[in-house]
Structures are given as structure tokens and as C-alpha cells.
């Protein structure tokens, strides 16, 4: 597979971290010790889907542009799911 240019990879990782932080703050996501397992049923993917469903985004489970755009918007600090 073609290696991603460093810049793009960094940007992608930044987006993932931003999304992870968002899910921790507002969707009760707890990153367990393991590193990311990009399986369709990984906890992170499930939480991304939950958030995309709440906001009426396309439910892809991926950090796509719509999701990345959303996690950077100003918002209320209270979670979207009952904690």
C-alpha cells in the first residue's frame, strides 16, 4: 500500500485524537489500554457511530470530514449521552 506522506498521517492522527477526546468528553468513551483496533466493532468505532447518529451524520464509524468538522465546533460542555 502507498505509504501516506508524513504530513497527511500526522493530520489524520490529530483528527483521531481530537475525535477520541470528544467521545471521552461527551459520549462516555473510555479508551482501554489496548491501542486502537480498527475493527468495525471496536469500542471507538461504536462510539463514533453513536455520535454520528445523534448528529444526523452519515453513520460510517470513521473519522470522515463531516465528523472532523463537527468535533471542532463550539458546543455545550454537557455530554450528549446520560453519564
Amino acid at each position, binding site marked *: 500500500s502507498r505509504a501516506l506522506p508524513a504530513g497527511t498521517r500526522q493530520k489524520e492522527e490529530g483528527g483521531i485524537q481530537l475525535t477520541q477526546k470528544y467521545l471521552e468528553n461527551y459520549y462516555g468513551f473510555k479508551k482501554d489500554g489496548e491501542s486502537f483496533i480498527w475493527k468495525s466493532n471496536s469500542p471507538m468505532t461504536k462510539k463514533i457511530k453513536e455520535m454520528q447518529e445523534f*448528529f*444526523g451524520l452519515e453513520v460510517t464509524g470513521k473519522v470522515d470530514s463531516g465528523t472532523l468538522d463537527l468535533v471542532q465546533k*463550539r*458546543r*455545550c*460542555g*454537557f455530554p*450528549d449521552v*446520560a453519564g
Partner: protein
Amino acid sequence: FTTFAGEPKWAKQVLTYRILNYTPDLRPVDVNASIKKALSVWSSVTPLKFIKKDRGDADIMISFAARAHNDFMPFDGPGGSIAHAYAPGKDFGGDAHFDEDETWTKSTEGTNLFYVAAHEFGHSLGLFHSKDSNALMYPVYRKFDPSVFPLHQDDINGIQYLYGPSNTHNDQRESTEIKDPTESKEPTLPNTCDPSLTFDAVTTFRGEIMFFKDKHFWRKHPAVQTADFNLISSFWPRLPPGVDAAYEIPEKDKTVIFKGNEFWVVRGDTILPGYPQKIHTLGFSKDITKIDAAFYNGNEGKTYYFIADKFLSYDKRSQSMDRKPILISNEFPGINGKIDAVFQHENFFYFFCGRKQFEFDPDKKRVTRLLKTNFWFPC
């Protein structure tokens, strides 16, 4: 809409709030007004009433802070999380915290305090986030139209699920049914859309505008389509009908109401003790037996009292009253003769003379618009 788990809500209808500190981004008077207006959004559609406290405990404690601030939800610097509030309950319950790292404004630039506070007070009253992207309780901050009432039907459904509709609104519906004059024994109720409508007095009142007419008054939030219609006696049983003048001192949460040579001071629906008093205790000479209209200009700390085609003003800073009456048209060019009522809204003065209403710009010192008296109503 959704509520918090277990549907926590306040068991009482009169709630207190206290602003513990102020953001340096806005004048305190603007913070007070934004918070008051944000609460009135919810009180206009429920039986709830909000009373401001300046000391001691209150149901809704409001504060500005950055980063970690003595709860378990630290803020995150500019952007991101901009505020949060807690569900009804004791201690933290109901409290609202605003991130000082935001730039708080009263415009559509920066982060509008009124709009965010209205959302957070939805939480303070028991609403959780809504998935409806038009709803105020949607979690993401969006540009908004300040001239549009911020509650969407989804928000109203949610808050009325918890507290029911505004009972004064119901009274209003009962009492504003315009019966066929041939049937009803009672004189017909004043109709806001009657082009010949005139008012006895008009004043701001806790972020709303109060229009007095005979035994009744309308209460109207500038951003809300509907107006509540009430008997004066339903709010202040001891106040006589047909008031002459009224004005509010927002920073003191006091409203002064005149009838004949007496005046009352009210706070919310309570007449403060020791009233009525005679108007000459305000410094008027004995030959003045009534006031036609009055308003308090918070920007300059002056209260204007209108009598026939003249006025007297009281300057709170020098604590002095004009020695002799001044012709109204000298100070307010274009406003000629006696006026029925006057109030200040944002940076304009609104003078009511018979069926006409004049919008006056004090900076340009001229009338900027000629309006109908029912301009503020959905006619």
C-alpha cells in the same frame, strides 16, 4: 427533546438565581440583562418565575471560570466546550458555568451570552440535549438570528412536559377572548390590533415590555411573538387601574408605577413595603399633581418625568432634580406636546402620543421612525 435520567425537575415555580461573578468581556448591566432575558425565555412558556438574588444561596448559581473550576468538568480553553450546567437539585444542581476563555458578547460576533445562557438554563431546569438541529437544546453552538425567539417547538414540548404551560398564558387565552360586544355585559377588552389603541403607560420589566391600559396590561418579550395579557390586580392587587406612568430601574430590579399624586415601587409581583408615597417626595413642587409618563435612562443614570408638554429629569449621580420644567421638544426634537407613555429599548426611546409612536435616537437627537402604537404586537 430528552430529560435527564430520572427526570429531575424543580418542585417549586419561583426559582432564585445569583450571578456570582462577571466576565470582563461585557458591562455588568449587559450580563444582568442577558441572563435575565435568557431566563425569561423559559418563564414565557411555563409557570416558572425567576427572582434575582445578590447574596446568599440561590437555586441557580451563575459563574464565569476558565479551565478547572471546582467541579469535575474543567473547561478547555477557547472554543470547544463553552459552558455547562447541572440538572435541578441541591448544591451544584441547577448551577451554570461559563468558560471565561470564550469572548462573551451581546451580538452575533464572538459567543453570544444570552443564547448560550438560554441553552444552559434549559439544563438547569431539567432538559438534556436534543437531536433536533433547530432546537435551542441542540448541543452545538450556531449562528442565530437575534430577532427570532430562540425556543423551537421541540424545546417548548420538553419544558412543558416537565412544568406545564404558562398559566398566565392560559388566563390570557381566557381573558382575551374577544366576545361579541352585543352578548357580553362586560365592556369589551382592549384589542392590541385596534389602530386607535392608546396606552396609559409603558415600561420595560425584567427583559420584557409592559403596556398598561385601563385595568389590564400586556407583557411582551421583544423576541417573542405572543403577549401575555393580565389584569393589573392579578399581579398587584393593591394597585389601582388606569396607571399614569411607569419606569424600571433594571439594575435594582425595581419598577416605579404612578397614579395621580402617588407612586408605588414593585419588585416582580411584590409591592415593596411603605408604598404608595406622594410624588412630591421625589422632589416635585406641590403644583405638580400627576405624571403623564416617565422612563429611566440607564446609560446616563437619569430619570425623566413628563408633565404636559414639559419634563423634569433627576440625575442620580448628582442626586439633583431640574429646578424648573423643560419643554419636551427642546430636549427631544420632534416630540411635541403631551405624551401618554415612553420607554427605552436598546438605544432608542419610544414615545407614545395618542395613536402614534415615535422612535427617538438620543445620539442623533431626532425621531428616526414614526410607528403605530401596536408596532410591538403581532398584528
